[in-house]
């Protein structure tokens, strides 16, 4: 338990090459753990938006909605995993969907361990010190991106250049999926409307 949820994730974020290798080949990672970190990130982001200090919190409290925030994190997370899986299957990637999910999930760890303490610290900051807040928040994002990069590279056994290309393509595929999804939805809606109209005309015919 402690090994799965604490020791191994901490090992991964400081030794990403080693860690992601172990995750893939020694079966040290668990999907359960990755999803837990996803949940923790959501909680950390909600906490930050709600409780970050007045000086750094520019959110309008009237429009904060935890459900919206849940969707805005969960949806891109799975969209990324699916797009990445779709593109790497075509590009000779060795990763399975489960491994992509785990790599992405473990890459979220720095966000969890930085957001929560920084949210608390920001409440005790004055204007001049908020620069540190923003700096550390940016660092956590960079750390996340580096881990995502190394994770993708290790899971699929890619070269550096190929990883960058794949990641860029993944983003494009994400856009395409969203586009197609909207298209299908609107078509379904029109079809439904069509049948409803036929039904209406039938009952109003005498």
């Amino acid at each position, binding site marked *: 338990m402690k090994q799965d949820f604490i020791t191994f994730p901490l090992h991964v974020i400081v030794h990403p090459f080693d860690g992601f290798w172990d995750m893939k080949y020694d079966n040290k990672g668990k999907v359960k753990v990755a999803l837990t970190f996803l949940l923790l990130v959501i909680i950390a982001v909600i906490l930050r938006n709600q409780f970050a200090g*007045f000086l750094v919190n520019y959110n309008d409290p009237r429009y904060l909605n935890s459900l919206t925030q849940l969707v805005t994190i969960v949806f891109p997370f799975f969209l990324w995993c699916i797009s990445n899986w779709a593109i790497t299957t075509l590009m000779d990637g060795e990763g399975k969907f489960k491994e992509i999910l785990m790599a992405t999930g473990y890459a979220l760890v720095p966000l969890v361990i930085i957001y929560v303490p920084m949210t608390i610290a920001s409440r005790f900051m*004055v204007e*001049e010190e908020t620069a540190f807040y923003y700096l550390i928040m940016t660092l956590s994002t960079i750390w996340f991106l580096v881990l995502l990069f190394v994770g993708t590279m290790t899971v699929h056994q890619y070269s550096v250049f190929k990883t960058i290309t794949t990641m860029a393509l993944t983003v494009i595929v994400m856009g395409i999926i969203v586009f197609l999804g909207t298209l299908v939805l609107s078509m379904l809606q029109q079809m439904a409307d069509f049948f409803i109209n036929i039904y209406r005309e039938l009952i109003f015919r005498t």
Partner: protein
Amino acid sequence: MSAKKWFLVIAAASLLLIQAAPAPASAASTPYESYNYNFWEEAVPAPAAYVPKLSISGADIGIGDFVEPSDMVVSSSGMIYVVDSGNARIVSLNDQWKVQHLFNGYEKDGETVAFKNPSGLFVDEEENLYIADTDNGRIVVLSKDGNLLKTIEQPASDVLPKDFKFIPLKVTVDRAKRIYVVAKGIYEGIMQFDEKGQFIGYVGTNKVQRDYTEMFWRLLSTKAQKAQMVLFIPTEFSNIDIDAKGFVYATNIDPDSKEPVKRLNPSGEDVLKRFGYFDVVGDIRYRIAVGPSKLIDVKVIGNGMYSVLDANQGKVFTYNDEGDLLYVYGGKGNQNGTFKIPVAVEHLGENQLVLDRGKSNIVVFEPTKFGSSVNKAVKLHYNGEDEQAVPIWQEVLRLNSNYDIAYIGIGKSLLMDKKNGEALKYFKLGMDRESYSVAYKRYRREVMKEHFGTFLTVLLVLAAAWLAFRLVNFRRQKRKLTISNFASQTLKEGKTL
């Protein structure tokens, strides 16, 4: 039959109910909606700061209707001057709205010269009139009895082009008797003349806005096409006023400008403070069909406050010295208190006057309790008497609990009194992050100083506890180790046995 009866009874009862209902508080209601913008740039309803009191036309004061009046001035002694452009005259009234003098022209070398479409006026402290006699192309200076003091004709200077035509529109004068003129077709800035009427130069140029799409098209087009394009020229100023310190306030009507109001120091730099949540531009939210505010007049009220007049929506916006929007009143319409073509805003004592060219009348607005409280508090704050301002700000908050400036005002006073913890609360309500930071810094230091002993004790106790825990743990593990060693040893021995 009975249904009809019932209906009648119900109708009668409803009539009774309407009669019985108390009259709505329309006595003080206004023909326009009053609002202010909050931190999130939303227009939030606010109590009216000014309500229309009466309107006065030329016929009301017995001199025939004004024809296309274009400017109005209230002098320091309280006299009201109206520039009645269409009738080519200046009307002076006292504060009881009695006509004192009609200036139709002036005598020069025994001849009477009439004004021709005068459109701007300034009255200095000695009640001398500076008239922008637009179609005659000159500035006329008259004494209060109508005697000619001097005229400023078409200026000659190396700076000016040969075919330059002087068409003065608005005029203002500073303490040193320097004359500032907004003239038609002059894009270089405000024309400045010395006391003898010599042209000195321009002050305060409007910046040209950079339009990147336009620049892109320009890059692609040929020379012939370029010649057809609109020139990028700065916009003209629309009006000017001067404050007690000799700083010139100027407005322009450039729709894209973020800085349509300027406060020019003697060397011509813009020094207007814009510390509010949003730009000093009038309306920050508007329908696209209506367009942004078109500021055509500015009036310095004193104590750092100034009002600007939006011709587009017929509203008057009043700001304090730091660029916070204090209140908005007015609107377009036909009711009393709304305008058709407002052209000038003035203030007379506590009241504000707006000259409407479309209706040819002057509307007098008087402050409500809310408006006068805000004015009083802003005045006290401007003069550094924050402590006295606090009860007035509290009164303002009682009338409008959305009034951020009041929260900030109270917060600043508390900060001055070193009540940092309380000030924090007020700055947070007023969404003033900068002051909050200052207050928090002091508060934090205060708390740390106060609790430093406790803090250190807790730290020491915790450290000691941790050490003790480690020690006990270490011992226990050692014992476990020896026991297990012993056990394995005995096991081994048992095996060998």
